[in-house]
């Protein structure tokens, strides 16, 4: 009955070749983050009107993506890891979208 072993199949698929990430990658990621931080501070001192929050969030999200992809090694991780990250992002999306569905429609009274 135990012809094929799905657990093992999955375990193998889960380990693509691991190159030890080079210091160059780490340092360039770090520099990018620093530059983006300066950008955040600069953007914080400007007034873009309605775009203030989107711009701040945009830069912050970009920084988060860099951390996830390079510091957390997700770029070279297994599909399962990527799926996990995607799933949590998706759930965060549900939280945001449905909550905003309330806030953005508070004025619609149906009259």
């Amino acid at each position: 009955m135990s012809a094929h072993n799905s657990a093992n199949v999955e375990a193998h698929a889960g380990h693509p070749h691991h190159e030890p990430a080079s210091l160059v990658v780490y340092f360039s990621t770090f520099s990018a983050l620093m530059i983006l931080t300066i950008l955040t501070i600069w953007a914080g001192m400007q007034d873009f009107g309605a775009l203030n929050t989107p711009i701040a969030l945009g830069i912050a999200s970009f920084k988060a993506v860099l951390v996830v992809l390079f510091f957390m090694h997700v770029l070279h991780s297994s599909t399962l890891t990527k799926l996990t990250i995607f799933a949590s992002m998706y759930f965060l999306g549900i939280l945001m979208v449905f909550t905003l569905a309330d806030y953005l429609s508070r004025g619609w009274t149906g009259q």
Partner: protein
Amino acid sequence: MSAINLDRRVVGEAASTHEATPKPATNYLNHETTIASWLLTLDHKRIGLLYLVGISLMFVLGGAFAGLIRLELMTPKGDLLTGDVYNKSFTAHGVVMIFLFLIPSIPAVLGNFLLPIMIGTKDVAFPRLNLLSFYVYAAGGVFLALALLLGGVDTGWTFYTPLSSTYANGNVMVAALGVFVIGFSSILTGLNFVVTIHRMRAPGMTWFRMPLFVWAMYATSLIQILGTPVVAITIALVGFERFLGVGIFDPRLGGDPILFQHLFWFYSHPAVYIMILPSLGVASELVSTFSRKGVFGYHIIACSSIAIAIFGFVVWAHHMFTSGLSQYAAMVFSVLTFSVAIPSGIKVFSWLATMYKGSVSLASPMIFFFGFIGLFTIGGMTGLFLSTLGTDIHLHDTYFVVAHFHYIMVGGAIMGFMGGIHYWWPKITGRMYNETLAKISAALIFVGFNFTFFPQFFLGYMGMPRRYHEYPEELQVLNVLSTVGASVLAIGYLTPGIYLPFSFFFGKKAPKNPWGATTLEWTECESPPSPHNFDHNPPVYDHVYDYSTLNKEAAVVSH
């Protein structure tokens, strides 16, 4: 004793080895006996038992507060407790029962014990994290105990702002910290189970060969991992606002109190599925074993667990219909809430179809199952009353809601837990308990439960709000009924507290597979299991609930 000896390999020699067991086999209970070997154990089975002790104590504590509440409500006047003490009692009741008892109940006790065995492996993926989760749970419990000793919290288990963030006394942050900490214990358990199921299944154990209890635990774990961090962050935000004055929930600081409800229920509605899904998994095992029939619609039950986990995340605002939610959002959430009843309904119909033409036995775990299925169905159906937008405006925050969720959480989840404990007790302890007492206990719980909570549907419909210690005189009859029912219920719960521990020491030795079940913990493990569960890779069959092999070997059937 209705034990059916179906042990495949031992059948021939069973008679000779039955009474006089010369050398007691080593098992996980007796291979090490020091206190440290228990408190520092990495064995998933022992950790399950540690949790069993922990949650049982918490159940008694939470029950004591429930007793206070029901005693106060015997009379319309607030004569036993002041309003303040009453508020603190129902808060303590809710917090203890939900966070310290019900959320860890089935996953941390039965899940820990059974999940690795059911998928044919020696332990969970991260045994140390597993032990850590127990101590994190205990630490969270210490915070909650501290909050109680400091004078208690009066916000209700929901910790709504602005009461919790601005007006309530400082204990609320101690209690919230406790909930925060316990959340991590729950995350650790969930994480462990997900990794174990993905990585450690025995050779041949494909996803659709796993018992349905494992599927239910998988779905539960997903919710624990995805949802619990949100409540942790929400609690942290309340702390930021209270201590640092960051404006998040307080309108004067530019915040919005309803945001708290969004964040809280984003976790806490899925959390109600953390409480009920494991019980649905137990039910699938019980109905199959005691009908001696494969579960009807195995695949669809497995998938409905996952569907519940997913749908459960998009219905949360049904708790907020009267909070000032926009009308559009209320409509969307009302419709979505109806959809979550579908997978639950699928399960109920599948269990009924499993019993149909099955060889149904009335052993005590099955009696608990019967109680479970009836009460869960009433709970689910009344949930639909509440998801109906117009009806909910009338019923929100009344005893109707209280009755609804107790039908599911006590009638469904705890009934399932009791059924599971009775079903696996012979495996866990190697002893049989007194079957008659168990049936009496199940009956007492069922009757007591209905007397306690059915009147509350009427009370709520007549407009009695929840969380008040006084009420108009014309509502007294129903309230007295409810309190009397609660006493019967308490006796029903205390009885197993006596005969189960008794059987642990003096009960008849349990055979390997007393119920004639087909899952690995019964067919491949001794009762109680050896420290490493299996000494070989267990055989895995195409269909997990296949009674045809067992039936042929049903040699001894005694009553």
